[in-house]
């Protein structure tokens, strides 16, 4: 996890195409420039980055579910609950479940736990748009594979 580069997922652990569910994990870094401001002497992972982490987990779920045909962009956050503080070096287990695969949009429910304790959850809406360039699509596929998504779910 590199907060300043918005790399929120270390590993995609599983994707279930029947249940339309994806699990991923990360570890909050010990140090980051973000902690210098949030907050000086009291480092905490910003809530907006927890939402981003759920969004990226959901994003890979949408990509896998739709065969990487379109790119999902976060468009809405509903019932977002940030339940506890998250300190550096906290291990995170993310899960995203597809609620609705619509035409041009998708809705997921996502959550993050740490050692079994619920940290946050939300319902997320994504607009799904055609790839602007082939490079973009190729880069997202490459990242998914590097994070551990099985090749059978990543069309070449």
């Amino acid at each position: 996890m590199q907060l300043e580069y918005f790399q929120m997922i270390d590993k995609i652990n599983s994707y279930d195409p029947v249940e339309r569910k994806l699990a991923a994990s990360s570890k909050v870094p010990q140090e980051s420039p973000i902690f210098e401001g949030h907050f000086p002497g009291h480092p905490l992972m910003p809530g907006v980055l927890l939402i981003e982490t759920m969004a990226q987990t959901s994003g890979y779920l949408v990509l896998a579910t739709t065969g990487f045909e379109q790119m999902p962009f976060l468009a809405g956050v509903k019932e977002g609950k940030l339940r506890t503080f998250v300190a550096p070096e906290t291990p995170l287990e993310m899960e995203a479940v597809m609620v609705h695969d619509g035409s041009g949009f998708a809705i997921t429910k996502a959550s993050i736990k740490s050692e079994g304790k619920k940290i946050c959850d939300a319902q997320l809406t994504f607009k799904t748009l055609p790839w602007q360039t082939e490079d973009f699509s190729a880069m997202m596929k490459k990242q998914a594979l590097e994070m551990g998504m099985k090749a059978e779910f990543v069309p070449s």
Partner: protein
Amino acid sequence: MSDTFDKVADIISETSEIPREDITPDSHTIDDLGIDSLDFLDIVFAIDKEFGIKIPLESWTQEVNDGNASTEEYFVMKNLCGKIDDLIKANSA
């Protein structure tokens, strides 16, 4: 008025906080009711769920953008509800 119209009008009213009485069969969901694209996604989600269909929003939007259809054809309430009825029929056929 049709059952579909009543259900869709209820969904729009609940989702967009538009007074239910302001929604008529001739209301244009964008021009008259002022529903923006993000609220429209919430409405389509609720309609998909309510009727067990998948509104082909992408192809409708594409047709309008390409000049092959007017916004009225898809986004005036009575026409929208007609399209929904067609999708329900096609689903159960």
